[in-house]
């Protein structure tokens, strides 16, 4: 009965191996979260860090409103079910379940022998902590046993029970305490297939009944898809995607998720994209095949992938192709063999009818159909259900929230024209004249400006609302915190845009300023003061900052470690004393002014209201700092 918050959680082993990398997640109350991924991806480690069985190297873990990083497992009010059950072999099932209760005390008031509350001299009850008594214990154990159907086995020992029953006992031991969070570490992987399916639905039922937050670790994607309200897909210590089962299936963020979720595996082919008019031609690299899809299906695709030169990966599921459907996107397939699964038949074939490069395709066809091996058929692709990934990064190139709006524009006399509107460029943006292109991050479209627009579509993606705006029949994506409809007015945050025109390019102002430094300790009036040491200057570090640094590094090593301190432009200011910096340029973005300065060999952007020149002193705000350990690249604060 609590929400969880994981912020920049890292697990780094003493030998430098990173098991979990920058894990960020908000888990709401009563959610059923599933961590899924191949073995060694860090899912169990993350769970064990939540349980308190594994130390958190860096980051902040909250259960409810309490930071539990340094807390003992027993104080976190969690319960865990282990893969190998971990029952207490010398105790009866009753004792196994009751043990957690016996270890706990409950608040009560002081009572006399007859059970009446004893009052103090002010006539108030005296609060005390006491252990569960016999009746309470057996009532609670019996209640848990009844839920799981193991009442008749309570007097037995674990070794007299079967695998499924033992796992029930392990569940009983967890639920009897009514914990805030239930953690389950591959609880079903030791059971046989039939029992697993049965226990799967029982655990889902249990979750509904208990109304507790569940975190479930599995390597089985079917378990993940059928049980979770949200799924975290992990690989090599990195979170690959966090979303609902439906969204993971429909909108995989990268090739790994696309291939991991769903059976049979998604079909992948190397290809290139070429846009002509309102159509996009997809040409397969390894096979003599080509399909044409309407541009409307690839609207959010980053434009520079559409010029036919970039290698991309096309992905589509077995059910997105059919051997007898109607449509324009047709490909020739040479069938190699088929598997009859009852309600459906999986047809395996190759796009390359001549043989050669591996172009294996799996197609789902209706039940009990016969296919001749080596026959060449025509398959039809549903263009609504295709996925595209970058060939190198393997990230989706048609994300649900596009990063940028790509617009054609022209610059003339300090005025920028795009989407049929003309805006005066702020002095900070100096650009050549002529036609060019404009990249506006979706997050840089602000509401409340002087550009009139109409909301044509809105879509909620991971708690954010993506609005499609229409401006003079052109399209602009914007992110909003609230639902908006009809006519709105928007403005552009010019410091975030990229503008290429007239042979010159203006890049956005970097959001992060980095400075290298260390942490030092000094004795002052008997107390130890910890400071950030940057370029020979000291800035007192707030308690929150240095305690986190100490937690992430160990002991005195903290003082020999190089850190990268980061601030946004608002975290730095100009003052009387501080890091010496040379002003290079003043940037005037209209409403706001920034100074570009050079300090300690780094270029910094500082928010300022005055026009600066020459040498200034930069004062960073130590409370707003975020700290990255340079060597291991761990975000500490």
């Amino acid at each position: 009965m609590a929400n969880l918050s994981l912020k920049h959680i890292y697990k780094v082993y003493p030998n430098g191996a990173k098991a979990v990398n920058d894990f960020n997640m908000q888990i709401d109350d009563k959610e059923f979260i599933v961590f899924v991924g191949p073995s060694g991806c860090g899912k169990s480690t993350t769970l064990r860090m939540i349980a308190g069985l594994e130390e958190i190297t860096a980051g902040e873990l909250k259960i409810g409103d309490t930071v539990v990083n340094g807390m003992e497992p027993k104080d976190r009010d969690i319960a865990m079910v282990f893969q190998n059950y971990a029952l207490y072999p010398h105790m009866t099932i009753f004792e196994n379940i009751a043990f957690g209760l016996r270890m706990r005390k409950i608040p009560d008031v002081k009572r006399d022998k007859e059970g009446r509350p004893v009052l103090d001299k002010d006539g108030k009850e005296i609060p005390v902590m006491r252990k569960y008594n016999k009746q309470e214990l057996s009532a609670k154990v019996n209640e848990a046993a009844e839920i799981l159907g193991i009442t008749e086995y309570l007097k037995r020992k674990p070794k007299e029970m079967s695998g499924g029953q033992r796992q029930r006992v392990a569940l009983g031991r967890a639920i009897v305490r009514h914990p805030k969070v239930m953690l389950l570490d591959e609880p079903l992987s030791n059971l046989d297939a039939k029992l697993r399916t049965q226990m799967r639905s029982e655990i889902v039922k249990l979750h509904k009944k208990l109304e507790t937050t569940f975190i479930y670790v599995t390597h089985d994607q079917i378990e993940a898809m059928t049980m979770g309200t949200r799924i975290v897909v992990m690989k090599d210590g990195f979170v690959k995607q966090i979303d609902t089962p439906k969204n993971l299936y429909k909108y995989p963020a990268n090739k790994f998720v696309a291939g991991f979720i769903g059976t049979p595996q998604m079909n992948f082919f190397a290809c290139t994209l070429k846009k002509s008019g309102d159509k996009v031609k997809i040409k397969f690299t390894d096979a003599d095949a080509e399909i044409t899809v309407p541009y409307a299906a690839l609207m959010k695709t980053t434009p520079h992938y559409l010029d036919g030169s970039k290698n991309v990966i096309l992905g589509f599921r077995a059910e997105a192709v059919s051997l007898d459907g109607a449509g324009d996107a047709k490909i020739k397939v040479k069938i190699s063999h088929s598997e009859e699964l009852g309600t459906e038949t999986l047809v395996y074939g190759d796009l390359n009818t001549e043989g050669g490069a591996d172009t294996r395709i799996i197609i789902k066809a209706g039940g009990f159909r016969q296919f001749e091996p080596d026959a060449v058929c025509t398959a039809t692709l549903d263009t609504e259900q295709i996925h595209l990934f970058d060939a190198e990064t393997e990230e989706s190139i048609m994300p649900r929230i596009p990063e940028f709006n790509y617009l054609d524009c022209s610059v003339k006399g300090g005025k920028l024209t795009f989407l049929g509107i003309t805006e005066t460029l702020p002095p900070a943006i100096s650009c050549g004249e002529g036609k060019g292109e404009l990249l506006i991050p979706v997050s840089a479209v602000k509401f409340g400006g002087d550009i009139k627009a109409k909301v044509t579509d809105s879509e909620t993606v991971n708690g954010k609302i993506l609005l499609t705006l229409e401006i003079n029949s052109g399209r602009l994506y914007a992110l909003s915190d609230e639902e908006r409809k009809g006519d709105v007015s928007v403005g552009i945050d010019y410091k975030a845009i990229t503008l290429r025109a007239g042979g010159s390019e203006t890049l956005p102002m970097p959001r992060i300023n980095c400075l290298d430094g260390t942490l030092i300790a000094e004795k002052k009036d008997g107390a130890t003061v910890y400071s950030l040491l940057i370029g020979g200057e000291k800035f007192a570090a707030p308690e929150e900052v240095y305690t986190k640094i100490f937690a992430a590094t160990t002991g005195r090593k903290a003082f020999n470690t190089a850190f990268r301190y980061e601030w946004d432009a608002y975290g730095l200011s100009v003052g009387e004393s501080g890091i010496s910096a040379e002003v290079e340029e003043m940037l005037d973005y209209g409403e706001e002014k920034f100074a570009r300065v050079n300090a300690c060999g780094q270029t910094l952007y500082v928010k300022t209201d005055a026009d600066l020149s020459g040498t200034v002193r930069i004062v960073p705000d130590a409370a707003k700092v975020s700290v990255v350990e340079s060597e291991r690249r761990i975000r500490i604060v």
Partner: protein
Amino acid sequence: MNKANVKVVKAKTKRVLNVLITYCILILVAFIFFFPCLWLILASFSKSGSIYSFDGFFPAQYGFDAFKSLFTDTVMYNYPRWFANTLFIAVMSCILGTLLTILTAYCMSRFRFKSRKAMMKATLLLGMFPSFMGTIAVYLIMTQFNLINQHWGLILIYSAQAPMGYMVQKGFFDTIPYSIDEAARIDGASNFTVFVKFILPLSKPMLVYTALTSFTWPWSDFILPKMLLIDKDLYTVAVGLMSLGETEFARFAAGSIFIAIPIIVLYFCLVKYMINGMAAGAVKE
């Protein structure tokens, strides 16, 4: 008889011969082992006492005189007193030594701390030297602490040396799945609770083994008590028996036989706990 039958008979003779040879060897080995023991038992029932009055290899006459005098003639050689001394030292060393050994083993098995590996290697290495190598040093230390001629000095040495052999116990603790500890910790148990409520009940066979070994060593040790105990009244049985006169061989033999009784009793009391499979059913292997 046809050929096949001849083969069967041949195989049968061969098998019988094999068994016969095996038993002959086993009986021979057993005899070599048991003969000294047997001889000692016979000697303890010798009526005359002195080894010189034996009729060849075996005593000339048999009787219970040696056993009687062991407990009745206590003016010169106070055997009951020695026995009590030995029992006290052995029981105390057994309790303290077992406690220290299992705590050391638990520590090494369950906790990961700096220099753990180095300490394990060092103890292993030190354990390879015979314990009497340090007797002079031990003697000097004991004089410094004024523990010469005191039973507690011996008990301290025995208990302190016992954890050197923690490896066997650690190996046993390692077989108890770590997830039981983790489950207990999540259920609210402290390290001490885990140790007392889970590790100890699950390692009964190992506890018995540890207790037996740490009992038998002080019980039969000679070198240390010989060096540290001066008063005859403080002697342990081993030292006391050595102080017997030449003509008291039967008494010596009787004393040696009698000293084996507590160990045999202890063994039969504890043997029922030395069973395997305590942790069955805990985890899925």
